[in-house]
């Protein structure tokens, strides 16, 4: 029983790492642009498929394809913002939310058109897992968790040590004050999309490594990603780390008592409980 729980905890940390990378992007975008970006899951999927093209088409190892996927997804996010969202900046946030819902659908269609509707994987065959005392750990799991830790650390340095990172935090904390102090808002917005899109690409690749690639993979993971962002306090990127881990662990550990099909329901239930009990999140968000 203890081994089983520990095993599920390992899966939970892996899922939590993936959710964290997605939720940080959602939180950053919410902090700067004040809308819930519904296309974030599909942006993750897009990054995963960019990687697939290099892996399956040109024989890259997955890790080597990641930088290209990050740049690709970041550029895609900036392009979407410039062609669509930028024209809606003066509209109520609700309109941006609906627009991003449409973008989510459009991105998924593009993925289906380019890469086809079936399930795909980066590497066929079974990885030989490591075994300790009855626990099973796949090398991929280690890479996913390590990758997430490195990226979160890099993001922390970016937000605290660079001028642009500080400008992003300033805009997120107090938009009006940041604007009157001369922060170039359009440039900050562009960097926000680049960071959010890049992190989403990695999250998508990790999700593809952990499970498989499918055009609906992004939409399916959107709910847990939002749950993680809300749990951590939306608009608070650091909270997203805690939120991602809690949701990831809860979803995996819940399979002890409930049918694994209902894992998304666990994320949903936690999110709703959080919204009722403490809507500002574990850490005070911008709610």
């Amino acid at each position: 029983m203890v081994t089983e729980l520990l095993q599920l905890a390992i899966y939970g940390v892996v899922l939590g790492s993936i959710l964290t990378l997605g939720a940080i992007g959602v939180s950053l975008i919410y902090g700067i642009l004040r809308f819930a970006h519904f296309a974030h899951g599909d942006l993750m999927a897009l990054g995963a498929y960019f990687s697939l093209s290099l892996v399956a088409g040109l024989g890259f190892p997955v890790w080597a394809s990641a930088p290209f996927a990050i740049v690709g997804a970041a550029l895609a996010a900036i392009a979407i913002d410039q062609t669509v969202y930028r024209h809606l900046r003066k509209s109520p946030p609700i309109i941006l939310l609906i627009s991003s819902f449409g973008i989510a659908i459009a991105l998924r269609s593009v993925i289906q058109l380019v890469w086809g509707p079936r399930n795909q994987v980066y590497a066929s065959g079974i990885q030989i897992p490591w075994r300790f005392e009855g626990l099973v750990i796949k090398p991929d799991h280690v890479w996913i968790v390590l990758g997430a830790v490195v990226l979160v650390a890099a993001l922390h340095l970016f937000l605290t040590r660079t001028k642009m990172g500080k400008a992003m935090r300033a805009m997120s904390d107090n938009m009006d004050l940041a604007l009157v102090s001369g922060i170039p808002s359009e440039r900050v917005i562009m960097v926000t999309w680049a960071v959010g899109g890049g992190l989403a690409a990695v999250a998508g690749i990790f999700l593809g490594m952990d499970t498989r690639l499918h055009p609906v993979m992004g939409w399916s993971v959107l709910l847990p990603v939002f749950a993680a962002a809300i749990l951590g306090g939306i608009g608070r990127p650091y909270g997203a780390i805690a939120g991602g881990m809690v949701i990831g662990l809860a979803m995996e550990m819940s399979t002890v008592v409930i049918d694994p099909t209902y894992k998304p329901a666990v994320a949903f239930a936690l999110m709703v409980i959080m919204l009722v009990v403490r809507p500002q999140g574990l850490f005070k968000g911008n709610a």
Partner: protein
Amino acid sequence: MEMDGLLTYGVFFLTQAGIYAVLALGLNVQYGLTGQINIGIAGFFAVGAYTSAIVTTHPSTAHLGGFNLPFPVGVVAAMATSALVAAAIGRITMRLRSDYLAIATIGIAEIIRLALKNEDWLTNGVRGIPGIPRPFSETLGANPLISLGVVLGFVAFAFWMVERARSAPWGRVLRAIRENEDGVSAAGKDVAHFRLQAFVFGASLMGMAGALYAHFIGFISPEAFLPLYGTFLVWVMLIAGGAGNNWGALVGALAIWVLWSATQFMTDALGAEYATQAGALRVLLIGVLLQVILIARPQGLLPERGARKH
């Protein structure tokens, strides 16, 4: 196509457009009047369809019921069940901001979809429920024209209800909440309570549309409720027609349904080997269309009368 074929297609086409019109009217109560975002339309639609199917089909060991009750009972039950689901979730979420509600509705739709697929005792799982009777087929026969008439009757009924609600003081409170929640609250109205009523009312119409769909097609399975496309099309319909305007909801439903069906003819011409790509291309086109409308004409074809210009 021969004359008969054309007529059959026309009847089929209008019946489906009518079902979408009911959905768009339901969404208009929630979003157009009250400013609530519901991304889980397909969930309420499915709840309505399954409820009416279980209530009206012959008894079966494959799923709950059926209870062999007449069609009108099925519709009322469908509306009531959708309303109940909406009330349960609404009680928790109505005090939240609209973007949190939007996220919550994704969760509801997802859980409903999973339940339809996995709770075999209730829904017969992925095999679905066959043999749902056409409306009044025992007395009037199974003529598709009768189904069309019934659906259009329900469209008119839904329109009348929503239009009355909109022009009544109740509807004015909803629009006031949409424009200035704090002001309404300061005027002594219980904002959450009004929101809940609007959410439940809209969801019951979506349940009604689900029942109409089930009786019109005769067979339902989880496959029929691809959550996104149903929800997404209804949103494009309402935004294109004009959120807040009930005529807009009707016009938008018809216009987008014409477009959606026309793209099917176009993509059919590509041939069967491109069928999946063609489907994706259609959705992509509608997705782009939504962006164009939001940027170029956010008020829709028929703007809400007396609405504040943004």
